């Protein structure tokens, strides 16, 4: 083969590779530098800052609530959509519409639903179930705001997990499930002994992707949580755009990166399948 033919793939890939490395390698080096350098490294300032505890806590709460809920909903939705019923394709399509909706837009949508003059409150008052609105936003209602944020994320991003799981489910040979039927398994036994084990790779992919991106959402936090709820990612934006402090912002970015790496590695370690799938 001529040199050109052999080199062709590498030549085609090279520009993207360089681009990606520039936009990841350089920033990575920079934030590490900014965070750790100087007499008073910004990273220390962040670690000892009172904001860290809160940001970490809220990040953990949100991620820990959203991920399991999305996973469970995605699995049940996948099983649900395996059935054949009239209008199924339409409903499936509706279910995945949020895939294209941004976090900020989703946050605004749920503001419309949950604000004191929003749909939920107005509807409930109209029916007479409540006489005063249920408040979701505001410092004294922080818990409910968290709920609103979690709800928004579930609304928006379950479809992402669903698409991955659903694709994985369709790849399971139907005869494995029929054999389970013939040999006596009930629905829950089928789920436990055949479906879930065979879905493990998809679940792993979905968990990794979802968790890592859940760590980065800022839209719902800012829009719904305003000043009183913060997560690690919002701190990056806050310290740069509001407080104009690149060093501290970088330090927070390092934290985000570190947690991302740690969680990613943890998932991969915990979920590596032992028996091999076909």
């Amino acid at each position: 083969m001529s040199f050109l033919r052999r080199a062709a793939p590498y030549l085609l890939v090279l520009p993207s590779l360089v681009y990606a490395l520039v936009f990841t390698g350089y920033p990575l080096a920079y934030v590490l530098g900014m965070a750790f350098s100087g007499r008073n490294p910004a990273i220390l300032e962040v670690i000892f800052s009172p904001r860290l505890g809160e940001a970490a806590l809220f990040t953990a709460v949100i991620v820990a609530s959203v991920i399991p809920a999305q996973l469970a909903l995605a699995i049940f939705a996948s099983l649900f959509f395996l059935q054949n019923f009239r209008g199924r394709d339409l409903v499936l399509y509706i279910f995945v519409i949020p895939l294209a909706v941004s976090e900020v837009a989703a946050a605004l949508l749920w503001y419309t639903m949950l604000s004191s003059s929003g749909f939920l409150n107005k509807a409930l008052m109209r029916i007479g179930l409540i006489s005063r609105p249920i408040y979701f936003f505001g410092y004294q209602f922080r818990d409910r705001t968290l709920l609103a944020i979690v709800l928004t994320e579930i609304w928006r991003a379950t479809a992402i997990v669903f698409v991955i799981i659903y694709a994985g489910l369709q790849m399971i040979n139907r005869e494995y499930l029929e054999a389970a039927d013939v040999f006596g398994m009930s629905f829950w036994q089928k789920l436990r002994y055949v479906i879930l084990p065979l879905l493990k790779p998809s679940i792993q992919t979905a968990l990794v992707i979802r968790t890592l991106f859940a760590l980065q959402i800022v839209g719902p936090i800012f829009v719904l949580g305003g000043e009183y709820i913060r997560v690690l990612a919002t701190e990056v934006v806050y310290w740069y755009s509001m407080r104009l402090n690149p060093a501290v912002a970088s330090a927070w970015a390092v934290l985000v990166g570190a947690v991302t790496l740690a969680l990613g590695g943890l998932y991969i370690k915990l979920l590596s399948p032992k028996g091999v799938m076909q």
Partner: protein
Amino acid sequence: MVRVNLEGVTKRFGNVLAVDNVTLTVESEEFFVLLGPSGCGKTTTLRIVAGLETPDAGRVLFDGVDVTHVPARKRGVAMVFQSYAVWPHMKVFENIAMPLRIRKLPESEIAERVKRVAEILQIDHLLDRYPFQLSGGERQRVAVARALAVEPKVLLMDEPLSNLDALLRVTARAELKRLQKKLRITTLYVTHDQVEAMVLADRIAVMNKGRLVQVGTPDEIYREPIHRFVAHFIGSPPINFFDGVVQEVCIDAGFARIPVNNVPEEYVGKQVIVGVRPEDLSLQPVPRGLELKGELLLIENLGNEYILHVDVGGTTLRVLAREKPTRRDVTLYLDPANLHIFDKSTELRIPLRYK
């Protein structure tokens, strides 16, 4: 052991009538084969017995009990799937044991049954492996073991041998037959391979386009096919057909006249199809036989036999012969008792006898 009845079972998929009013009985301990080309409805019928499909009309009965609407998991049947459906994420032991666990048998008995069944199928040394580590033939035996371990009322098999290579298929076939006789389980088996059907079955049901065409023992099906389709489907190489017209004392096939006895009046003038099997045509003279002179066109060498393509008066007949003829012109001999005569329009057998 259990007797299975199908009464008027019908199943549609959209516009397609997959199973059309099938009624048959599988006797207790019988090895019953559903035979037919792809799309004839045999697999759908099997799945209806399994409970994986519900018929649109008709009933399925196990020993007289109506199980038509009982879900698969409650029927107490076992099935060997065409793809084996051996669960890939469980070891062989687990695969066989799982259905027993579901039935809540005690661990000790599960272990014992698995071991016993694995020994019978000679896979006891593979119990600790995963399916991906096994060959196709070994996986097939796991699937059979799983089905037998349950000690099912009815054993269902969907073309379990079709994914095996030719040599393996022959030995596996014999093993299956031996096992079934020994364990005396009522078995319903689906295949498109007529040799398999003939070898394995106590009785065969030939199906075409969703309908039962003929039910009988292998001998009956082979010797007395009641429909042209059956005559054609059974036998390898396939039967020769040529047209003829019934006259008062013979059938006029153009190149030959076949003398016939006692032709009932209503048959005179009828168009018929005459069938003769390649193995029933001979190069050696046959007592009271018909003589057909023809020209050799082609020889197919099977090793121990030859298929000769002979042109007789414009019609090409296939002949199964032990020796190769040395010359172009050959004379074929045929005992007319071996003729199968079918009505051209109804395609059903006509009982005409040679003089």
